[in-house]
């Protein structure tokens, strides 16, 4: 299965600043996703990162707040912009390989973000 490296693993940021999270995969993958998770709770899909085109955002998430890049099949970034304490969360990257909606997701270890 794909090995996913997510950086940074954690950060503490000041409100009003922005942070970019990186997701690097050791092999080419079909789909890359970005999720948000409160500790001990389920995952909320932010967007699907599309290679070479704009990301597809879920309801409640917008590009201005969470710009996403995916320049190739192995790398994506998520930026959390103009951060506020409400953005404190765990952000997770996941990938799938192959085609078909039943493909398993492989997750990075997440970025734990705290906003002061």
């Amino acid at each position, binding site marked *: 299965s794909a090995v*996913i490296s997510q950086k940074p693993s954690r950060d503490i940021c000041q409100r009003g600043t922005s942070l970019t999270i990186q997701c690097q995969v050791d092999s080419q993958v079909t789909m890359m*996703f970005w999720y948000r998770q409160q*500790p*001990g*709770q*389920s*995952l*909320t*899909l932010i967007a699907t990162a599309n290679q070479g085109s704009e990301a597809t955002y879920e309801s409640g998430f917008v590009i201005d707040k969470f710009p996403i890049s995916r320049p190739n099949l192995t790398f994506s970034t998520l930026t959390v912009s103009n951060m506020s304490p409400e953005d404190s969360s765990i952000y*997770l990257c*996941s990938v799938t390989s192959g085609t078909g*909606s*039943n493909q*398993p*997701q*492989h*997750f*990075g*270890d*997440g970025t*734990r973000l705290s906003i002061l």
Partner: protein
Amino acid sequence: TQLLEQSPQFLSIQEGENLTVYCNSSSVFSSLQWYRQEPGEGPVLLVTVVTGGEVKKLKRLTFQFGDARKDSSLHITAAQPGDTGLYLCLGTSYGKLTFGQGTILTVHP
């Protein structure tokens, strides 16, 4: 909007006990995946079930997909402290992903 109701939300049991986690929906899913997540790590896939009525076993874990593909269960026999973690079900349908709310399982020695 598809919903996947997962229960119970919390489960605290003693080592050796059995337990079952449920995921239920009014929607039909093409597949149902179960993940386990430990603190500081991402979720890890345990199993994928795709056929109505399918039963899969992974050591002490038994997974079942409902006949109508609207529900699934995870049964753990003789739970061990190493089973402690957050369990998540994920339903897939026409490319749409729906997570259950998660079950935090704590197994006390």
